[in-house]
């Protein structure tokens, strides 16, 4: 969140959000829509139709092709082996293996003209840029671009009408398209657990693109509130809450993002600690919790077991599509097994909770090889 004395900047769609009746709040240094119609209505609309999210606060960075090996010193993903048009989820790490940010990186085109396109979190983008520059990398920060996410089961039908060919992309694939004559980089990705797309366009073209998408009967504008409840139900961790510099990728349950070659070779910041945790197990783990009753446990609530405090809730709330409270917590690894019964201290009341597998709500991604 922005500090009180930090000026709040406006994003390219500010006027459109306000015209659509958004309630605006400061977030990551920008005025952002927290909700339009209401969080539950927006959440359920996205799960059944298509929701349009403005995520232009996020950092869009472009690295020259030659930066692959140097980039690999900062994150545990296989960048050198990343194929053209493929997205990879990765994390920027510190010396101790703590997570400085989580991100998506895509190779856009091969050969001399190719580059790496990276999307990082809005609240951390300036710190990330400093880390990259200190490591001798000089990504271009494309703050002249905007970013939209169109998410939900009807997203593909809507976007195919405006950008023919996008339906052929499978999950975690991207390509260059045109929308209303504007160049756009479109990937089949998102952070709601639904099928959907992320659309990068020039800031001066984004209002026309957003209006065209919103003109579709399947599409409604969705705010940050539903974005949070959707990602929580999908079991997706949020940077600054479920992921911090005090947490490693192994502890966060994100070992899948450490590529096989990188596990064998190491050579990234924090590798010693992370490889040790992969071998011997981490001392703590991120877990999903299903909470009895209707009272939600929020971020910061203490997790207790018979022996005392064993962890902390890192994000929590009410799962609108599930109809019950859910939470993510970082707990002592001895209490991380599915089915473990734990207590959550909410204002002195101990709520019964059970460790459950995530996602809480099944994901609907369109994988490679699936019918198109």
């Amino acid at each position, binding site marked *: 969140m922005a500090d009180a004395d930090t000026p709040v900047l406006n994003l390219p769609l500010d006027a459109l959000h306000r015209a659509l009746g958004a309630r605006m709040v400061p977030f990551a240094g920008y005025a952002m829509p927290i909700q339009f119609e*209401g*969080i539950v209505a927006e959440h359920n609309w996205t799960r059944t139709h298509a929701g349009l999210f403005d995520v232009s606060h996020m950092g869009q960075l472009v690295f020259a092709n030659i930066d692959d090996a140097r980039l690999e010193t900062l994150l545990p993903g296989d960048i050198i082996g990343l194929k053209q048009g493929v997205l990879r989820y990765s994390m920027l790490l510190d010396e101790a293996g703590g997570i400085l940010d989580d991100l998506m990186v895509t190779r856009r085109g091969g050969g001399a003209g190719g580059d790496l396109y990276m999307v990082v979190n809005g609240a951390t983008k300036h710190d990330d840029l400093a880390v990259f520059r200190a490591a001798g990398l000089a990504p271009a920060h494309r703050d002249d671009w905007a970013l939209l996410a169109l998410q939900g089961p009807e997203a593909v039908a809507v976007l195919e009408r405006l950008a023919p060919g996008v339906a052929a992309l499978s999950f975690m694939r991207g390509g260059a398209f045109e929308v209303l004559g504007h160049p756009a980089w479109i990937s089949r990705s998102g952070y709601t657990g639904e099928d959907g797309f992320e659309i990068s366009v020039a800031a001066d073209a984004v209002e026309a693109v957003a209006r065209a998408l919103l003109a579709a009967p399947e599409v409604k504008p969705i705010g940050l509130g539903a974005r949070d409840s959707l990602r929580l139900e999908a079991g997706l961790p949020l940077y600054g809450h479920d992921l911090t510099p005090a947490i490693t990728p192994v502890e966060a349950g994100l070992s899948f993002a450490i590529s096989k070659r990188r596990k064998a070779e190491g050579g990234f910041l924090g590798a010693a600690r992370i490889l040790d945790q992969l071998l011997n197990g981490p001392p703590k783990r991120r877990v999903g919790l299903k909470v009895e009753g209707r009272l*939600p446990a*929020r971020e910061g609530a203490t997790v207790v077991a018979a022996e005392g405090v064993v962890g902390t809730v890192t994000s929590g*709330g*009410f799962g609108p599509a599930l109809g019950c409270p859910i939470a993510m917590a970082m707990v002592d690894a001895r209490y991380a097994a599915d089915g473990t019964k734990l207590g959550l201290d909410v*204002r002195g009341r101990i709520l019964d909770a059970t460790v459950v597998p995530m996602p809480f709500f099944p994901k609907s991604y369109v994988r490679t090889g699936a019918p198109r």
Partner: protein
Amino acid sequence: MTRYFTREHEWVEVSGVAGTVGITDYAQGQLGDVVFVDLPAPGKPLTRGKDAAVVESVKAASDVYAPVSGVVTEANAALDADPALVNTAPETDGWFFKLTLSDASELDGLMHEDAYKAFVASL
């Protein structure tokens, strides 16, 4: 019966020393979808301006303060079964609790409906 309002968007309807407390339509609109209301138990003493209840919306937990001091006599059981009553009927069926006022002179510091409407319009 007279209804009074606070600047924190609670209402209290008073008949003699018996009061019924809830939150206003403006407040529920700000909170969004309510999923749980943590109500004070009968017998609990409340102090004017101090914590009385907690409203959990999908968005966040929000404190509700006692508009007047007194002792709780009843919590609205209907909110356990249907917390969304706070959204759909905040100033009628979605009341929070009843109490016995301990100092009726505290009402002098509260707003009547016209003053509250003007206050909300100024926000």
